[in-house]
Each structure stands twice: as structure tokens, then as C-alpha cells.
């Protein structure tokens, strides 16, 4: 955006994924190469384009031509990119990810998506308020301040059908109304950016790529509710997001969108960033507020709900990042346009962090009502490595595993809940047949067990007992009755826990028992892991016909479990072998198998 008409603009995707893939080096290489060629171009940065699996990504916009995105641009590709795609203006088909009007290799990833929350992600420079303004930014706050009453804003959000994107799906407009009607003049807005689910990075990407849209959503909420102060509670593990939020807040204050008398009107709003300190339970709203107050982040009983008595005992409205990012779009385009998307009870779109054993993993936004299978197959390109789809894990440690047989379930809150999983905040991990479901359940329980704050006995001790049973099962020491004990513990933990962490912690176990009971039984009765993943239940074996006796595996084995003379078939001693996998990784002839 904001491109001068004549200059070519080159943008490097500097989201956390891009940076992890080396985009910073690509940017430096581009800077050098542009200077060496004395090219008259604008070189800049942008956020997450969504195609994490193809990072680093570089977008080129030539004057009067549609933008083109090139993929996997490491420093060694920079020279050719500049010479051919910029100077000569040609297309380099083998590196082309997508370009309007040209057949790119990654068009399929984008064509089924509807981008509302991600409308600016990867398109604007997240550190430039001018880019955001050129993309129609801060028009929503202008509209509400000049032509809408707070009550009308709340009505508009209610009419849009927007529900809380943090996972529980409570209607946002209703939440705002409760807080607006709560007695008291001092009220707070909190943006929950404590994205803690393993496998989830939606909020981080939005904050890194389009921080102003979240600020604008918060300002609109502040106006609607009658609050003058907002907090963003952001994970400390997201340094790039915090850095860009700080820049965005300073810019918005300078331009009069934040601070005293917003846009010269009789409305003031300030935003403060609070960094989390690494506690998953702080994603729970009452724990989060305790943390802002400088206490141990432990949840408390509700009621009173935050809308009545929240931060510093004042009425508080707390929404998630994605929820706020939807708000400006709804105000500008109208509730009806938003409600036109989705299903009867779940409107609009949902952002997912698509990961796991899928070919195209990344940040995706799809309309509600699309089926899980469509997301995996059409957007994600199916399973990587020619294996079979086994299930889809949704909602992280609070969610569950939906089996392939239910993959045609549409994405809406109620349908997903019926499967035993939850919509969650947007983690979607695709599981193939090489993954053991008992191990997946053990993995999530290990996580929630460590993250339990310890307040409720059932959560603190019960998850520990469940974990011990699951560990036994995966080690081949499962006993008759273990499944029933797990189910009983699960029900008690759900009932006996104060907050969402404990109430949902058993979900991954319950859903895997419900849909993959045969795997539990194979572990318990036959001491066998059908996915060949649980280490205590597998052995490594050399396939004699394939082994040329090259000794590569014997040399890398860290515990010296592999014996064999040169040009003789090797042998792995199962007593010594730790199943570390190094030999399989190293053997080019694939002569080692897991049995």
C-alpha cells in the first residue's frame, strides 16, 4: 500500500515464521544487492503472508502490475530475483508462489480462504501507520465517533453474530452490553494476547502483521462500553509482536487515534501493554487479571463476572486478539455483510494455525461452515509424505482429536463441540497414521498437568494420576481397567475444577478413548503400539536384504547398539538400543525398519 506510482516495491515477509526461516538474512542480502545495482526501488517489510511452509517470502509490486509473491527466497536466490523479476520484469515460474493473473504453485492455498481478520496481514508494513491508513484503517473509529452512539455500536456487533474467538464462543456484543450496563465510571478493556496453546500462532501473526487493527478494535470497544483504558496482555515469548505493538501505539497516539480526546472528540482512550511471564493458566480471564495486578495467576470463582467486577475490582471487558481484529471490518462493512458468511449460529470466518502432517502448513482464514476435510485437503493440500489422514486435533490441550470419519464436520462452534473437541482459539494439528493417539493424549495431559496452577485438588492431583496411567500404557505396562479409571478421573476433574483449564484438561483423553479405543486396547492387552511410535513397544531392525554393511549406522549410534563387519549385514542389539532414530535418519538405503 501507499506505493508511489512509478517505483517498484519489494517487501520481505518478516513474521516470526519468516524470521525463523531466515527472512532477516534475505532482507539484508536484498539491501546489499539493491545498493550494488543502484536500483531505484522501495525495499520494505511486511508481516505474515500465511504460507509458512514456503518462507522466506518476497513480494514484488511493479508499477501498474499485480503483486507477485516469490517463495523460499534465501540469500543465494536474491541476485537472480532482482535481475529477472525486477530489472527485466520477467516471471520466474519455478519460484512463483502466487501472483494475481499468473499461475503460481500456491494459488490453491489462498483461493478457498476469506480474509477478514487477515485482511492486511502480509499486505502492509506493520510498522507503518500510513500503510494501515491507506488500507482503510482507523475509518471504523472515525465512523463510530462521528455517527454512532455507544448503544448503536453494541447493536451492530450483536447483529453481526460475532462470537469470542478465544475459544468459548460467547457472543461478543452481549459481553460488551453487560459491561456497558455495569454500574461504575471506571471500566477496563483487556485484549487477551496470552496465546498459550501449543500449536497455535494465530494471534501472534495478527499482532505482528497488523497491530493497528487490534488497537482499533479495542478503541471501538472502549467507546461502546465507556472505558478509557485498555490493556494488552501479551505473551513475553512474542518479542516481535510486543515490539510492533509498541510502535503502533506510539504512532496512533501521535495521530490522535489514541490518548486524550480521540480525533478531537469527547472520548479518551489509552492502551498499556502487559507482558505475561509464562503461565498457560493466565489465558483464563480471572487468572489473567490477577497477573496484571501482580499476583500469582490463579483463577477465582465466577460470579462475579469480570463485566461486573474485574481488573482492580472494576467492570472489565476481555476479548481475544482475533475478536478485536474483526471489529473494525464489521463497523465499516456492516453487520449484515459479516453475518452473510458462516452458518446459522457461527458467523464470519475463523483463523487457524494449520500445522502437523499437512503439506501446506500456515496461517489460514476460512468462512465458518467449511468442513474440516476441505481445510485439510483443499487449503492444506492433504497429508504430507503420502501417508493417511487419521485425525485432526483442535483446540489444543482443551480440545480433542476428531477422527477422519468425522472430517466432514462443518466448522462451527456447536458442530465441533458435538464431536467432543472444541473450536478453541484456532490450533489445528493434522495427524497421520504414524502418530499414536495414546501418546497424543499423554502429551496434552503432560502439558496441562505441568500448567495446572494447583488451586483445585482435582486438577492438581487428578491430572497427575491420569498422566501416570497414560505413561504406563505407553510403556507397555497398561492394566485391565485403566481405560475405565481414566474415564472416571476425567469426569471428576471436569466437575471438580474451578476454571477452564481443569474443566477441559481431560478432553484430549476422552476424545481419543472415544474414537481410538482400539489403540488403547492394543497398548494395554497386546503391548503393541499400532502407530509404531511408543518407544518402549517397538524395536529397530536391520533389513538384511537392504543392508550393504556400510557401517554408517554403527558409527552414528550414540550407544553403540549396532554391530557388524564391513560389507556384512549389521545387527541392532535391542537391549542396548534407545530408539533415538539417528540410524534411520542416516541410512540412505532405508535398511532399518521399526517393528
Amino acid at each position: 500500500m501507499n506505493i508511489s506510482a512509478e517505483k517498484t516495491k519489494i517487501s520481505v515477509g518478516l513474521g516470526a515464521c519468516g524470521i525463523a526461516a531466515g527472512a532477516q538474512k534475505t532482507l539484508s542480502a536484498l539491501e546489499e544487492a539493491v545498493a550494488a545495482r543502484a536500483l531505484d526501488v522501495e525495499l520494505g517489510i511486511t508481516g505474515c503472508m500465511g504460507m509458512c511452509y514456503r518462507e522466506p517470502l518476497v513480494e514484488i509490486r511493479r508499477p501498474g502490475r499485480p503483486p507477485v509473491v516469490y517463495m523460499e527466497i534465501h540469500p543465494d536466490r536474491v541476485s537472480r530475483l532482482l535481475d529477472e523479476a525486477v530489472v527485466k520484469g520477467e516471471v520466474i515460474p519455478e519460484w512463483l508462489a502466487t501472483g494475481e493473473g499468473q499461475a503460481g504453485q500456491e494459488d490453491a492455498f489462498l483461493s478457498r480462504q476469506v480474509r477478514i481478520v487477515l485482511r492486511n496481514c502480509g499486505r502492509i508494513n506493520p510498522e507503518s501507520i500510513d500503510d494501515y491508513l491507506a488500507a482503510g484503517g482507523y475509518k471504523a473509529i472515525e465512523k463510530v465517533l462521528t455517527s454512532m452512539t455507544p448503544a448503536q455500536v453494541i447493536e451492530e456487533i450483536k447483529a453481526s453474530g460475532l462470537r469470542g474467538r478465544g475459544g468459548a464462543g460467547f457472543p461478543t456484543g452481549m459481553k460488551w452490553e453487560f459491561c456497558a450496563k455495569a454500574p461504575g465510571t471506571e471500566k477496563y478493556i483487556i485484549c487477551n494476547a496470552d496465546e498459550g496453546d501449543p500449536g497455535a500462532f494465530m494471534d501472534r501473526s495478527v499482532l505482528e502483521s497488523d497491530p493497528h487493527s487490534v488497537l482499533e478494535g479495542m478503541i471501538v470497544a472502549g467507546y461502546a462500553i465507556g472505558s478509557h483504558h485498555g490493556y494488552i496482555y501479551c505473551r513475553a515469548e512474542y518479542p516481535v509482536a510486543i515490539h510492533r505493538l509498541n510502535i503502533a501505539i506510539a504512532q496512533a497516539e501521535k495521530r490522535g487515534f489514541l490518548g486524550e480526546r480521540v480525533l478531537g472528540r469527547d472520548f479518551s482512550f489509552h492502551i498499556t501493554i502487559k507482558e505475561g511471564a509464562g503461565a498457560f493458566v493466565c489465558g483464563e480471564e480471572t487468572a489473567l487479571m490477577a497477573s496484571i495486578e501482580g499476583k500469582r495467576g490463579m483463577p477465582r470463582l465466577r460470579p462475579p463476572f469480570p463485566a461486573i467486577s474485574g481488573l482492580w475490582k472494576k467492570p472489565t471487558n476481555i476479548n481475544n486478539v482475533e475478536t478485536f481484529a474483526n471489529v473494525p471490518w464489521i463497523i465499516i462493512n456492516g453487520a449484515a455483510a459479516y453475518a452473510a458468511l458462516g452458518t446459522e449460529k457461527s458467523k464470519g470466518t475463523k483463523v487457524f494455525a494449520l500445522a502437523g502432517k499437512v503439506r501446506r502448513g500456515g496461517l489460514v482464514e476460512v468462512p465458518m461452515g467449511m468442513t474440516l476435510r476441505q481445510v485439510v485437503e483443499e487449503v492444506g493440500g492433504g497429508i504430507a509424505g503420502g501417508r493417511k489422514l487419521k485425525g485432526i486435533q483442535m483446540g489444543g490441550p482443551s480440545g480433542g482429536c476428531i477422527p477422519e470419519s468425522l472430517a466432514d464436520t462443518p466448522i462451527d462452534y456447536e458442530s465441533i463441540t458435538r464431536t467432543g473437541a472444541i473450536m478453541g482459539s484456532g490450533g489445528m494439528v493434522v495427524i497421520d497414521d504414524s502418530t499414536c493417539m495414546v501418546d497424543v493424549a499423554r502429551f496434552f495431559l503432560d502439558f496441562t498437568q505441568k500448567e495446572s496452577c494447583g488451586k483445585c485438588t482435582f486438577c492438581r492431583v487428578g491430572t497427575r494420576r491420569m498422566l501416570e496411567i497414560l505413561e504406563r500404557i505407553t510403556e507397555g505396562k497398561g492394566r485391565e481397567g485403566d481405560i475405565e479409571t481414566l474415564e472416571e478421573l476425567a469426569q471428576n476433574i471436569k466437575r471438580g475444577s474451578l476454571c477452564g483449564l481443569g474443566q477441559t484438561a481431560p478432553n484430549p483423553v476422552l476424545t481419543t478413548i472415544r474414537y481410538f479405543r482400539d489403540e488403547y486396547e492394543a497398548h494395554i492387552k497386546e503391548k503393541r503400539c499400532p502407530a509404531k511410535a511408543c518407544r518402549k513397544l517397538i524395536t529397530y531392525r536391520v533389513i538384511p536384504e537392504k543392508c550393504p554393511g556400510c557401517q554408517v549406522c554403527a558409527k552414528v549410534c550414540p550407544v553403540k547398539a549396532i554391530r557388524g563387519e564391513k560389507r556384512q549385514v549389521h545387527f541392532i542389539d535391542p537391549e542396548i538400543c534407545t530408539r533415538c532414530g539417528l540410524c534411520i535418519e542416516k541410512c540412505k538405503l532405508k535398511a532399518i525398519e521399526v517393528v
Partner: protein
Amino acid sequence: MNQCACASRAQAAGEDLKKVDEIIARHGSGSGALIPVLQKVQDALGWLPKEALDRIAAGLHVPASNVYGVATFYAQFRLKPVGKYIIKVCHGTACHVAGAQKITEAFERELGVKDGETTADRMFTLESVACLGCCSLAPVAMVQKEAHGRLSADRVTKVVAEYRKAEGQAK
């Protein structure tokens, strides 16, 4: 000439506490400032020594028990000194199914320490973290602020060697 180690250590501790005082002065007092102050002190010192916690309690007028309670509640805070390089192996869902446990074990072998420990020369600390959010690069580990994606046990050896080389340590 060898100088008395005690004196230089006491001097270092004194300088550290001066930094703590400066941070407290910048953040005001009260429990609302506690977490930001702990974070800034840890940024400055690398960890939270007992003396620093006492100083923070006095400076913010918060009971020492509360300071300790908060410092032990949040995973971010370290009550033990750490190595120069902190290696964070991601154990998020995507990394787990991609073999994160094997990556942790490879680092353990390479460094000769267990998960959560620091090497004797205080060069490396090995940690497991819940999720770094670079799921499409799984399995991932982060050393300081640099992410290393699509790791294998073999690449772990190379990553450690890189940092050792930068430090002039041959294995």
C-alpha cells in the same frame, strides 16, 4: 597476579543491586509493578538471585513471600544462574509429533547435560518450552533469538558445533 575472588564477587553483587535499585525507581511501587520489575531485573542479571528478590520486596513495599510466590509461579523466572546460550527446544504439538523428544535427547547427548540443566562451563542451558509458534518448521529449537527449524539429531550436532566455534571452543 591473582586477586581475591571474594572481593570481586562482592563488588559484582553490589553492582547488580545497583541495577535492581535503578529498575525499581523507574517502575514505582505496589504489586502492579512486581512482574514488570522482576522481568527487567532478570533481563539485566540473567536470573533472579535471592538478594535481588529481597531488594525488590523492600523497594516495592511488597511482602518478600509474595515476591517469592510470584517468582516461582511463572515459568519465565529463573532462580538459578543460566548459561550464556539458552537452548529452547520446542515441545509444541506439531514439534511433538515431528519428534521433539529425540531433538531434546540429541542436545542432551551433545552437551552432556539433562533437560533443564546448564553445562559446567556455563556456556549452554538446555530447556524444553511449550510452543515457539513456528509450527511449520517443526521440529524447532531456539538458541537466544535465533530459530533453527526442521531439526534432526544430526543437525543438532552441527548447531551446537556452530556456537562452540563462535566461542572458540573445539569439542
